């Protein structure tokens, strides 16, 4: 999968917000994701299409519904590209510490 597509997809705040929502609750339909958004259904569908093309969102069919899932695999690949394998445990520790100090539920 093309790294350019991943960076381009992540460069838009609306698309990052959609990913945040999927992280909160995985497996949402287009209708679920449109709720409470000041964006047209078409705009949300277009953003989801860009995220799907970048493989940041995976979709599955359940009956007539298409469900969207956050796919963290491309982000992990980008992270590994610049993070030395020896740094990974330390970065995990720092990231855990930051999360705990800032009181965010992991």
């Amino acid at each position, binding site marked *: 999968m093309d790294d350019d597509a991943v960076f381009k997809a992540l460069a838009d705040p609306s698309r990052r917000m959609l990913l945040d929502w999927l992280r909160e*609750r*995985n*497996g949402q339909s287009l209708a679920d994701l449109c709720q409470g958004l000041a964006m047209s259904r078409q705009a949300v569908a277009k953003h989801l299409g860009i995220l799907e093309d970048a493989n940041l969102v*995976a979709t*599955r069919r359940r009956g007539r519904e298409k469900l969207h*899932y956050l796919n*963290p695999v491309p982000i992990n*690949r980008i992270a590994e590209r610049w993070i030395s*394998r020896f740094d*990974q445990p330390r970065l995990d520790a720092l990231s855990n510490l930051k999360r705990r100090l800032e009181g965010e539920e992991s």
Partner: protein
Amino acid sequence: MTAAGSSEFVYVTYIRTTPERLWSALTEADFMRQYWFGMHIESDWKAGSPWRLLFTDGRVADSGEVLESDPPRRLVLRWQHRLRPELEAEGPARCEIEIEPVGDAVKLAIVHTMDRPRSGLIGAVGDGWPKILSNLKSLLEAGRVALDTKL
């Protein structure tokens, strides 16, 4: 949407290889050890057969039953954690592995589901799958893994 009472995660990667080679990578112990941080699964991969995921020292991390096996396309496992008591108590999860040719690559999708909200197990495997898939992709495409430290 996902039923409110379940946890479901989907991991997708595209690998430039063949379905047969990917199936071997997912089911052969020697292949697995190279990208699964030294761990491997023991099974004959037939529907109804047991499987066990083993650490290098022989401890069992997870085990279960092969629910469906359709090489080189589809593998479904009942997945029971065995190491951490709080995760073991959550009961069995389901892991679907789908392999589908797309152009000159193969799409690998892993769907891990548990019938309970905010599953600790799904969270724990959720940290592991992206690293394992990334290593698997590097191994099949470039012949070496990206990360060889422990999870």
